[in-house]
């Protein structure tokens, strides 16, 4: 029988000796090579972290393999990052090159530090979710194959963080990323009255709609949707399986850019929509990967060193962003939901 409420493993028992010894005493760090961080302690101790890209969806064999590497090179300890990378913590510099050689042999990429494209934070998609408008792991794999060289080098103006959410629930919380890839629906829910009658609390379903498009349908003991008011957010479908929103021919991907979470220089920013829809085109999603490559390469060619994607766009102006990238601007990119006002230009000063 399980012990209730014992809480997570105590992190203190999961830390390698070099971290226990230098806890809170780190003095500075360097980024000598892509994917390698060197932290130096007040005591003079040096710790090398080797950051490795992972597909996040992994088998027990993968975990056992990285455990073997950690046993051989890192005294039996490793960690994961907030962006799903694996980090090998090497206290003996002599073990660095042999570890790198083993990782290369296994086809595991080392990178994702500094001015690189880091691993993509993402959701479950078609692998294991009930509301997705696109897949996650497959789109991520296609994008990271396309941007691989930017993961293993540090040649961008600043770090680029890409996130993917396979529907607007955004378990991946993509909304403040340099580039957000978001699964979107484009058609109103199709109502299965039978399913609604069977197991849905009608008042909660009506209340779930942010635009008030759903109202009760007493005749059917179900609901009715004012389709003109529906913005396809899918919140009703999350509440009620009878509000079928998945539409293979019309679901797809929107691209938002320019978000950031760090406070360095400029305040955190939301990502803004620049492409309202690209089709789901598995297995490689070529429209999505080439759109992202175009954005990153235009940014690389024009931004100043150290400037985040969103900072660059805010400096040159969004109108210039559309000119430089060649991305078509259209009325779908102008906000018409509840917080739209702040995005309208109230100035006669702008560029072309």
């Amino acid at each position, binding site marked *: *029988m*399980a012990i*209730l*409420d*014992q*809480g*997570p*493993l105590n*992190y203190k028992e999961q830390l390698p000796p070099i971290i226990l010894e230098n*806890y809170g005493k780190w*003095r*500075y*760090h360097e980024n000598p090579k892509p994917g390698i961080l060197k*932290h130096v302690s007040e005591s003079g101790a040096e710790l090398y972290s080797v950051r490795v890209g*992972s*597909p996040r*969806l*992994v*088998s*027990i064999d993968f*975990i*056992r393999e990285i*455990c073997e590497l950690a*046993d051989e090179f890192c005294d*039996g300890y*490793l*960690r994961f*990052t*907030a962006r799903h990378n694996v980090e090998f*913590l090497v206290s003996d510099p002599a073990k660095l090159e042999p570890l790198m050689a083993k990782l290369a042999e296994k086809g595991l990429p080392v990178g994702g530090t500094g001015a690189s494209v880091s691993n993509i934070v993402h959701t*479950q998609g078609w*692998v*294991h979710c*009930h509301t997705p408008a696109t897949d996650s792991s*497959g789109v991520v*794999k296609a994008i*990271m*194959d396309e941007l*691989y060289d930017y993961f293993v080098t540090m040649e961008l103006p600043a770090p680029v963080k890409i996130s993917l*959410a396979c529907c607007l*629930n955004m*378990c991946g*919380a993509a*909304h*403040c990323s340099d580039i957000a890839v978001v699964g979107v629906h484009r058609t109103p829910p199709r109502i299965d009255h039978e399913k609604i009658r069977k197991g849905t609390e009608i008042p909660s379903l009506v*209340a779930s709609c942010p635009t008030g498009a759903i109202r009760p349908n007493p005749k059917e003991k179900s609901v009715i949707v004012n389709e003109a008011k529906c913005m396809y957010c899918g*919140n009703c479908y*999350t509440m009620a399986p009878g509000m079928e929103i*998945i539409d293979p*021919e019309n679901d797809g991907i929107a691209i938002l850019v320019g*978000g950031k*979470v*760090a*406070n*360095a*220089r*400029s305040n955190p920013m939301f990502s803004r929509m620049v492409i309202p829809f690209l089709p*789901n085109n598995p*297995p*490689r999603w070529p429209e999505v990967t080439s759109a992202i490559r175009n954005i990153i390469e235009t940014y690389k060619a024009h931004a100043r060193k150290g400037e985040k994607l969103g900072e660059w766009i805010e400096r040159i102006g969004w109108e210039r962003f559309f000119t430089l990238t060649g991305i078509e601007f259209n009325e779908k990119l102008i906000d018409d939901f509840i917080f739209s006002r702040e995005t309208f230009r109230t100035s006669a000063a702008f560029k072309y």
Partner: protein
Amino acid sequence: MAEKKTPKLDELENGRWPSFVTEIKKAAVKNEASKELLHLLERSYEEKRGHWKHGGIVGVKGYGGGVIGRYTDLPEDFPHLAAFHTVRINAPSGWFYKTDSLRKICDIWEKRGSGLMNFHGATGDAILLGTTTEQLQPIFDELSEEGFDLGGSGSDLRSPSCCVGPGRCEYACYDTLEACYNITNEFQDELHRPMWPYKFKIKFSGCANDCTAAIARSDCAVIGTWRDSLIIDQEAVKAYVADGFDVQTVVVDHCPTKCLKFDAETQELSVVAEECNRCMHCINRMPKAIRPGKEKGATILLGGKSTIVQSAFMGWVIVPFMKMEAENDFEEFKELLRNIWEWWDENGKTRERIGETIYRLGMSKFLRDVGLPAVPQMVYRPRANPYVFWPEEEIKK
């Protein structure tokens, strides 16, 4: 089932980035459900749609969360996926693991599940992906035996997470690893037994670089900061200059508040402390020479969430500076959380995140009810309209 081909997924084994398809195939060698998952996913790639139904109610004894029911809508074609549930394991602070700990998870999961996992889920739990209803309790029992506990799900406290903190970062303004561990342990009931209007996420970042994206991804963001002046080591500044580092261009010119001054002649870098907004830019660029001040703590921000329903919110400052001290058991922060949850419990609607409740009822009501003083650090700028809700006691009768 008959051997079918998976040409679309096979294509995703090409390319240089490690392939999740290869991982599913590895699991498929040992496990029938993983094999079916491969074929179900191929079908999704053909039809451009998912094949999972809404979760049913499954669970383990004593908890209301931690496992999520998952069923395919094609059980006749994929009988091993008729039930393919998720188990969330609350990860240790900073996602540090002894390899022994990871192997214990693997051994249990090899015996009782699909062999597929996420390291980690977006909220920070280690995710075991796919098992049957009857395996849930034994999995929990065996994980528990090895010292693990389940994470949050549903309308409860989700597993808090934190950055690497003082474990490996010189920027950490408080002990994020200890705060996360201590506070997670304090609120085990809230984490395991859903009883709120909706989910509540807490993320701990040691500085304003916010490596856990707390401001965007958590209802309550605890972001390390300091109150006094940043500390400049003039000798180290000179060493940067000697190395050919351009202090003026890289650091001073990009300071958002223009509070830094570099004298090229004396090679001295100075700061007007009261003009500095503690953004971290200069420290990021010159970590050997510039450090956070001595009076350290955290800024507390509330209300961060993603798009559904009323647009995405970032966390709003509700406490500009709070000491985050392990010696005091983080008591001030815990007390604040209890007050916030009590208010949300009373005022929140079903499936309404705390940020949405505050937005609906007004920040000033929230601050009054919870007992937080209004300070200018809470806003970018004051209101532009005169529509003040005057409290009755301030009006002459």
